[in-house]
């Protein structure tokens, strides 16, 4: 059975629209992911004790497949700013891509405006700390080590260099949560971050951080598609066996 990319995209779009518009079940519970629970707790604590949150969006650009992980990071940035923008130490965003830096600044500026604290926003809250993977990691380290960062969330496209950032977080005693779209990044984050996000969990950030019905619908559509793929894989594996009996 051949499924073309267009058919798969069409099916995903149909599921997304059905779950967004026809079956928007807001009460439906989603399985607990410990990382997001810990992140929420850390955000609340940081607002109380006046420490800083750092959202690292990685080095993935916006002109390729890495952009989806960067968008998941931007969703987290928006939600974290909704909660902590008016705290003593407002959240800081770092990126390794300048287009992503502009989007991060735009996201923060609009959140500050919406919270009617637009005068407290400054473009330096969203920084491009380096433009290659290692220079990005190296530029991010001082922000963690010099400032009173209580949590460092890494959501975006990372490679092995992410270990330098998580090591700095550990040295600073900061909570670290990490998710990447690359396999290398995921493996390193699993070993070095306090709370790693595995596989598609990084794209569930919006649904777990209450970003709206579209994010929950997207998560449900993703679940349906995953089960369909599992079913197809099993059927494909069994088909030679069935053919052998005939």
């Amino acid at each position, binding site marked *: 059975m051949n499924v073309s990319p267009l058919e798969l995209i069409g099916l995903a779009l149909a599921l997304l629209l059905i779950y967004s518009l026809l079956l928007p079940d807001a009460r439906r519970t989603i399985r607990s992911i410990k990382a997001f629970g810990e992140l929420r707790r850390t955000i609340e604590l940081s607002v109380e004790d006046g420490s800083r949150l750092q959202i690292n969006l990685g080095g993935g650009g916006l002109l390729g497949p890495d952009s989806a992980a960067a968008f998941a990071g931007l969703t987290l940035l928006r939600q974290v700013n909704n909660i902590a923008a008016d705290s003593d130490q407002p959240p800081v965003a770092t990126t390794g891509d300048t287009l992503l830096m502009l989007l991060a600044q735009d996201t923060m500026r609009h959140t500050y405006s919406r919270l009617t604290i637009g005068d407290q926003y400054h473009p330096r809250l969203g920084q491009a700390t380096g433009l290659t993977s*290692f220079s990005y990691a190296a530029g991010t380290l001082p922000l963690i080590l010099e400032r009173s960062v209580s949590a460092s969330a890494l959501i975006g496209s990372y490679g092995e260099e992410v270990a330098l950032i998580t090591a700095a977080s550990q040295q600073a005693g900061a909570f670290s949560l990490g998710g990447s779209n690359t396999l290398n990044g995921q493996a390193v984050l699993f070993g070095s971050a306090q709370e790693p996000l595995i596989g598609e969990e990084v794209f569930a950030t919006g649904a777990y951080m209450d970003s709206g019905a579209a994010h929950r619908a997207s998560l449900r559509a993703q679940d349906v598609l995953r089960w369909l793929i599992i079913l197809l894989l099993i059927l494909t594996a069994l088909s030679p066996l069935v053919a052998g009996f005939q």
Partner: protein
Amino acid sequence: MNLRVATPLAAAVAVAAGVFILVSLFVPGLEDLRNRILNWAILMAALALLLGMLNLFSVHFEKIRNRQQPVYSAVLIIAMLATFGITAWEGSQGVISTWIFNNIEVPIEASLMAVLAISLTLAAVRLLQNRKDLMSIVFAVTLFILLLGSGPLFGIELPFFTSGLGPYVNGILSTGAMRGLLIGVALGTMLTGLRILIAADRPYGG
């Protein structure tokens, strides 16, 4: 300067561009227009590089003013301006800019790679201290098997690991897990893209 674009207009432009690029991948004859739009995006990315440089300059200039490790920031600013000036003057393939890349940037990144090796070793050692769950144990055991299976250790070859368990874990179990993760990432990427295409998620304009 504060440029503000109304959110509905920004959303309309973003959705129209996204839908067109997607459609052009499936409908023949739209390649030229697609390439032109993608070239505009690349031009904007190049402009964003200049803005990123200004941002970096502003951050480190502020650090110098506030005397927060001013020496490091001063070195960064001087190096950045010098590299920018030289590269703008003689091009990215020029003698001096190539020398800067080969003799300064590459060795610095290589030294960071060396630090990374130590960080990763420490992370592997600390893994079971930080998280004592089943998955961490599986991760640590797999790492141990793959290390033993990667070749002779101190001149001693362990055939059970190098030609038995190691290749099995690496070739079958790891590959299966990797494909599962990649399918999950691909689904997440596709749905994130679709959310943006239908403007349900707008990572621009708030």
